[in-house]
């Protein structure tokens, strides 16, 4: 981000200068994570980017360590998990961190995404930033799905069977694609082995796209609850210490939630059937994915056509790619869009509803409800968002970020901020 709000990196020693002339790594870190200006009015929903990077590190570190004990073989995979749980020093801890970590990762990413939806973070000039985020989300889903296969329990095996079979819906080449994915004529040893390899690879691809995501962020700068761009030094604080310490506080609170699950409810978010070894002859009564994929699963099952169901399921994610061009409103933040704000919350409820329905059997009224919610899901993007921009009367916005926090600029310097000003309640640091 081009700015002259805070002093840039200035090497203080001869060694520092020597190094900086050859590899300005310290300069990059300093200018990106110390002197980088962030809007002063960011609320706690803006701390989830930092939380997500911590979660990525936690997942990679515990995953690398678990890979030292795991055996990617259909005869030994389940046993090696039990070996980790019983014999490996702290193996139970590492595995529970990794399995619950996936859930926490998705919890954080959903809050992060909905924050972006609420405050219009996808709008110009941040389209690339948003699209990179959707790419990360897709990679996360692929990684989580393949990781869930590795314990080779009943849900692993049948989840893998069902999800890979989605590709058989592709006309003409579907069957060949599925056989290619499996490396055989059913989910088996080749499938497990390649999923293990890819499950190890993809997180590093995620890390790469995250680097691009952060790069794009640092080009445009953060959005903020007002949706107004930074205009002066009044509007910003330096990343360190202000944002750093605030992120650290949010991370600590998030770790408390994480620890609650790891130490006291380690199997709450998992499925009991996955403690049974995979059996290619017996399908569990209810195959359900992990909770974080349930809304998409509900959309898949809502459609009575195989191909169309798969198309809609992938479409429900793909629509996020074109979201920046579907929303016609010039106002970013929902704080100043009275109608969009209501539709946003309806959309949240619809997504949660789809998640609930994804866990229910596909029968009777559940299917009807899932169909209605699916239609609404797409209507939100293709009808409501384009039309709202045309019909909605946005509320007046403050002149600047500083105004929204500290009161209008025409007040004498040092006067207390006007209570009940245009500031949104969550602008308090």
């Amino acid at each position, binding site marked *: 981000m081009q700015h002259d709000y805070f002093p840039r990196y200035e090497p203080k020693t001869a060694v520092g200068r020597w190094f900086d002339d050859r590899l300005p790594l310290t300069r990059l870190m300093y200018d990106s994570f110390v002197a980088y200006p962030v809007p002063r009015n960011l609320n706690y929903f803006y701390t989830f980017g930092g939380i997500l990077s911590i979660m990525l590190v936690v997942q990679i570190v515990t995953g690398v360590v678990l890979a030292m004990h795991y055996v990617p073989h259909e005869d030994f995979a389940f046993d090696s998990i039990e070996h980790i749980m019983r014999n490996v020093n702290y193996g139970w801890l590492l595995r529970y961190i990794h399995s619950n970590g996936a859930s926490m990762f998705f919890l954080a990413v959903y809050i992060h995404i909905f924050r972006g939806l609420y405050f219009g973070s996808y709008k110009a000039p941040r389209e690339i930033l948003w699209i990179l985020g959707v790419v990360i989300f897709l990679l996360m889903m692929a990684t989580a799905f393949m990781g869930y296969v590795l314990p080779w329990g009943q849900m692993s095996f049948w989840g893998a069977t069902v999800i890979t079979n989605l590709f058989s819906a592709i006309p003409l080449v579907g069957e060949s694609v599925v056989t290619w994915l499996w490396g055989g004529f059913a989910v088996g040893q080749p499938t497990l082995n390649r999923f293990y390899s890819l499950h190890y690879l993809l997180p590093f691809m995620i890390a790469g796209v995250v680097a691009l995501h952060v790069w794009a962020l640092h080009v445009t700068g953060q959005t903020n609850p007002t949706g107004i761009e930074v205009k002066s030094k009044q509007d910003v604080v330096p990343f360190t210490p202000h944002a750093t*310490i*605030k992120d650290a506080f949010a991370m600590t609170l998030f770790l408390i939630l994480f620890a609650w699950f790891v130490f006291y409810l380690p199997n709450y978010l998992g499925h*009991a059937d996955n*403690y049974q070894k995979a059996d290619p002859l017996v399908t569990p009564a209810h195959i359900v994915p992990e909770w974080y994929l349930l809304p998409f699963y509900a959309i898949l099952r809502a459609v009575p056509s195989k191909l169309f169901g798969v198309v809609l399921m992938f479409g429900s994610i793909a629509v996020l790619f074109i979201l920046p061009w579907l929303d016609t409103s010039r106002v970013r933040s929902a704080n100043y869009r009275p109608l969009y704000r209501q539709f946003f919350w309806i959309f949240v409820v619809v997504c949660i509803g789809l998640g609930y329905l994804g866990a229910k059997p596909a029968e009777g*009224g559940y299917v009807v409800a899932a169909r209605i*919610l699916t239609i609404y899901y797409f209507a939100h993007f293709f009808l409501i968002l384009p039309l709202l921009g045309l019909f909605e009367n946005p509320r007046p916005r403050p002149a600047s970020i500083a105004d929204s926090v500290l009161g209008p600029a025409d007040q004498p310097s040092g006067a207390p901020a006007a209570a009940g000003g245009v500031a949104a309640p969550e602008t308090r640091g």
Partner: protein
Amino acid sequence: MHNALIRLLAAILLVLPLASLSYAADDESGTPHYPKNKPRHVSWSFAGPFGTFDPQQLQRGLQVYREACAACHSLGYVAFRTLASESGPHLSADAVRALASEYIIEDPDAPEGERPGRASDVFPDAPPYPDANPPDLSVITKARTVERGFPTFIFDIFTQYQETGPDYLYSLLTGYQDPPDDVEVPDGNYYNPYFVSGTALAMPPPLFEEAIAYAQNADDNPNNDVPETVDQYAKDVTAFLMWTAEPHMTDRKSLGLAVMIFLIVLAGLVYYTKKKVWAEAH
């Protein structure tokens, strides 16, 4: 004006799925839902954030497993040595060796291809059962669950209720009864309204009153008054199988307490630092 219209439309859209849900709840045509009866709750010693296993109970449970279950069900992930665990059954090293040596272990390196068990061995497989596949019991208390339903499953996060598996197993073991008139029980099956995937299962009732004489009830033991009932047997063997499924549970909960205290103190410290840092920015 059109704001109000849009709101009305949205409200209708929201009510529709709710209405279809209530229709779903009344739906009789769908597949039947099991179990017929929800599991009965037991007050387990291992429940809650400070729960621990009772070694005496686990030793009794081990005896029940060996006398009532082991003929058909394996315990293939449990090593004899772990029975000495202080937070588990807490057998002495000699008792573990003696127990292990009662089993015959297949070992290609042994002179006759088999040898007496050692502490480092796991329980050998149960003999094959004709026409059925009795599951291994090592993780059975984690592999069985009964759906809790909305909103109970949300409360469970706060109450830390984790005992669906044990409650289910206990209810199943004590739940055999005569079938009501309107239920057909196929030959070779046994009616049990707590069974998770039907009304009857192939496993015959395994426990009977006074069928097992607890070693703990020997005359020279000060606590020799454990009731020898189906209810007690079921509780003891379920507790034992909870331990086999989660042998590090006590370590997990005690480490969890330390981690929680650390994180809460850290959160307090970071919060005050954050307040100090931001005080200058306002």
